[in-house]
């Protein structure tokens, strides 16, 4: 994907790439070695295509988050093949993994904002990973997206002065401001009440649709299942696809 596309702020229609954004073949993952080895993911095969919103559900301990960290390049694949954004992560170097992370927008269960930066600074921080963007553009984009998530009045507030929902909205703004090619979200609604959680998910959906950016979201939350194009269900490290 070219930088032109990333730089354009206008909504783009999801381009149906023939190449999937995420492609897993017989993906396995185990923690530990030898006798302590504990396998948590078994022979996963799935794809996520461009523009799709895919939810990952399953009981806790089923390996959802582990899968997310593998796709994010935060852990190394132990067996099988995993290709994300065209990068074969099963044979990636540390630099490849870092580059992969830069193309992905992360939304964490906790907002994980930097407490010493204001909402705007937290969002602007992302552009440090994209030094090609001019400083004026950075400022403008940060303000734009924070306005979009309804925080125009809170630009210079530090996280400690924002409510839980507001923090999560800043986190979403942060994840999406650089127009990543993939968004990974780990239970973004877990720390929120149902109404706020619903708002946050709808916001995520709206932003993803306007940017044509695929989302893979781990969730327990049955109330948000309706936003998904597809639901992947994991149980005991094995995949049971539940198509909508």
């Amino acid at each position, binding site marked *: 994907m070219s930088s032109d596309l990333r730089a354009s702020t206008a909504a783009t229609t999801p381009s149906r790439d023939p190449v999937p954004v995420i492609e897993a073949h017989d993906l396995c993952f185990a923690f530990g070695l030898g006798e302590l080895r504990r396998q948590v993911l078994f022979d996963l095969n799935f794809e996520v295509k461009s523009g799709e919103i895919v939810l990952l559900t399953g009981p806790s301990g089923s390996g959802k988050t582990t899968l997310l960290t593998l796709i994010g390049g935060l852990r190394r694949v132990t067996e099988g093949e995993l290709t994300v954004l065209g990068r074969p992560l099963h044979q990636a170097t540390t630099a490849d993994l870092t580059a992969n992370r830069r193309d992905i927008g992360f939304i964490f269960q906790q907002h994980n904002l930097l407490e010493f930066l204001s909402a705007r600074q937290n969002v602007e921080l992302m552009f*440090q990973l994209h030094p090609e963007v001019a400083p004026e553009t950075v400022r403008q984009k940060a303000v734009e997206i924070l306005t979009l998530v309804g925080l125009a009045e809170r630009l210079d507030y530090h996280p400690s002065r924002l409510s839980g929902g507001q923090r999560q909205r800043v986190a979403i703004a942060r994840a999406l401001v650089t127009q990543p090619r993939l968004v990974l979200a780990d239970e973004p609604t877990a720390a929120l009440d149902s109404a706020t959680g619903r708002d946050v998910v709808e916001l995520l959906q709206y932003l993803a649709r306007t940017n044509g950016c695929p989302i893979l979201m781990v969730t327990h939350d049955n109330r948000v299942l309706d936003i998904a194009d597809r639901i992947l269900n994991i149980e005991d490290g094995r995949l049971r696809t539940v198509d909508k």
Partner: protein
Amino acid sequence: MWDTFLIAWRQLSYQRMKLVVACAGVVVAVMLMLVQLGIREGALENSIAIAAKVQADLVVISPRTKTIFQSTQFPRRLLMRLAGHPAVDYVQEMYMSQARWRNPWEFREHPIAVFGVDPRSPLIDFPGYSRMASELLLPDRLIFDRNNRVTYGPVREHLAAEGYLETEINHRRVRVIGSIPVGISIVSDGNLFLAPANFLRLFPQRNPGAIDLGLIRLKPGADREAVVQDLRPLLGAEARLMTREELVDSESRFVRESAPIDFIFGMGAVVGFFIGFVVVYQILYTEVTNHLPQFATMKAMGFSDRTLLSIVYYQGLLLSVLGYIPGFFLALWLYTVATRAIQMPFSMTWNRGISVFLLTVVMCLLSATIALQKVRRVDPADVF
């Protein structure tokens, strides 16, 4: 780079109180280093003050003399031999000894260093000494060092009020006719200056032909090295000819070797360095530990290890600058306090200021290097 610096600064300054405490640690270290090194250098400098004030091109001392404060005499006739050389303008003898000064207010006696040199054209820089030459040539007149310790009595105040002071030195009645600023050291508590004839009156047992220091002024344009080669054979083994610079060198070497100040205060500075190092390390380590989840988040978002490490390094640098500035001014203040208390002048030099700053930076960067091992090891997967 600037962006990374801003992150470092914002993270460091987010909790003001913590920042102040962190800086306080650096301040203490900077102050300790500056004060210890200052006293060390000040004491060394003051100890060679007399030698440094010599203005003669060449000096003659006894080969037995280790320091001019405890000099052995040599025959004046050897010095006079040198006066005949065509390149020599004139020679001058200097007598030095310890006398007993009676504090006229409390009638106690205190040892004091006495310097006898011709006040008409002294080859040593005692500021204001030659201005009182005509009166100094009268019997039993002498001049007091303005920087002498208070144990000798309120001489300066008395001189300001009365113009002169009568007291006894070596049980001989003398008149102090003024005071000049020369400076005392760890070797002597006080100095007196007077004409050679008056010196010999205070020490009647001393042989006028045995002098402590010979001072030689060369004619303008003379080749000093060549003159030294010419003159040395004339002295033989009974006296030693050296340049002014060699005298200063040998004096400072003596102080370094014989007095423990070099070691004591040098060690004080080293201790200061390590205190600072430990304090800064503790602070940065706690800081890094507290911010570990944030570092993990940044790593997960794709920030390279290098960026995160530079954040910690910038914080080390910031701490060193923020701690150095108040530490510097505190040290300046302590210098004036010490000058007043010890009555020896201590001053800040560019050299010391800059080297302590560099030491502070090294100290902070070293602490940062150890503290950031944690950042290097942080697992970005932990944020999920």
